[in-house]
């Protein structure tokens, strides 16, 4: 059995750990509120963008000559997977969930006899993937310096993706991120961004637009922007999810630390009492023998 001193030390160390997790929870809660706010504020842009593209792609007369970002290369041999994770740990299952989703996707692709490449955004994803798929990772981007998700960063990722698409390095691009549902639930998502997949949402507006310049040129200008916008949206969702996930993880940790302190305190008191009783018995029996 541990000595009284050891127990005392353990209680103290668990207590200080609890203080840290509690502080982290508070910080995550504050950041979560901000992240959620900016995710909500960013929504109109991506929605409007989506709308305009829907209208445009309906207006395109010559489907065969549609821009390749919209219609794809006509093949699906090489997939590009943009796996978006956080740069920091201690956020529960946040990163592992994305990685799990991505790994599932990878094995499906391999089973179908196709090839894939990986771009990781965020260092945690890179850490987890490089062991198993190190040779597939073609780019690792991390935005440790920027405090909040901003469009400038998203645009950088978007430009890389488009450049690789234009040089014919892949046929289909999918991004992986966590969608923020609430603090407890984040749903890992795989969203295809190239070619644009909007079959399920047919636009039923009868409105016909005038285009200036023509549809193809506008689409050519718009589609690359849409890629960045989608990535930005994913980044916003991701940062809200990360904070939410961290908050609940730290909440759990704080509670567990509390339980541990209680248990240790009981054990400490018990062994202290045992020591006192033992000493008393020794004294009494000593006095009796006189």
């Amino acid at each position: 059995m541990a000595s009284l001193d050891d127990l005392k030390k353990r209680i103290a160390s668990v207590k200080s750990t609890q203080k840290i997790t509690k502080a982290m929870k508070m910080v995550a809660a504050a950041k979560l509120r901000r992240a959620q706010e900016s995710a909500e504020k960013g929504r109109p842009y991506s929605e409007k963008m989506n709308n305009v593209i829907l209208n445009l792609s309906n207006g395109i007369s010559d489907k065969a000559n549609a821009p390749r970002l919209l219609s794809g290369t006509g093949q699906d041999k090489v997939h590009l997977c943009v796996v978006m994770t956080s740069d920091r740990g201690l956020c529960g299952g946040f990163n592992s969930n994305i990685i799990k989703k991505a790994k599932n996707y990878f094995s499906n692709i391999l089973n179908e006899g196709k090839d894939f490449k990986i771009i990781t955004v965020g260092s945690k994803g890179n850490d987890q993937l490089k062991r198993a798929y190190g040779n597939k990772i073609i780019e690792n981007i991390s935005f440790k310096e920027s405090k909040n998700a901003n469009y400038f960063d998203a645009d950088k990722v978007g430009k890389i993706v488009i450049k690789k698409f234009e040089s014919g390095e892949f046929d289909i691009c999918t991004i992986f991120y966590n969608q923020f549902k609430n603090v407890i639930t984040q749903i890992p998502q795989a969203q295809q961004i190239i070619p644009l997949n909007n079959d399920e949402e047919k636009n039923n507006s009868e409105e016909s637009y005038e285009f200036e310049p023509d549809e193809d040129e506008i689409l050519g200008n718009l589609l690359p922007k849409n890629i960045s916008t989608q990535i930005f949206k994913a980044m916003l969702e991701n940062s809200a999810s990360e904070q939410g996930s961290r908050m609940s993880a730290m909440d759990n940790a704080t509670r567990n630390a509390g339980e541990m302190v209680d248990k240790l305190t009981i054990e400490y008191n018990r062994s202290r009492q045992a020591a006192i009783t033992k000493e008393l018995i020794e004294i009494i029996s000593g006095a009796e023998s006189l």
Partner: protein
Amino acid sequence: MSEEFKIEIVNPEKSFLVKEDVLEVVVPAFEGEMGILKNHIPIISFLKPGIIKILSKSGNENYYVEDGIVEFKNDNLSILTSSIFNLNDIDKSKLQDLLKLAEKESNKTDINDQAKYLIDQKIEVLKSLN
């Protein structure tokens, strides 16, 4: 009949500006400046660097944009842009910075004609503001 319509400018981070009492908007569309009044036919176009002029009952406003998309439909004008500044808020040094950046960009040789055209436009607009 009132002559007012609604304008909404959004950038990726937030909804930048919403106004309900706009009389006329002049946007720097790709093929030249375009004035939009109420009951304009539905149109989609994209922007080159320039000045958006908003004439409304509650006063006129000017914004500098670098790129974007305009959509007009049912007397709703939406402008999507990733870089927009109110001309009243922007100061000279910021303009200088933008100009320097644009000039550096235009000296690159590996850009295509359209990008070159857009950058030249940008430089021109920025110079006129200074």
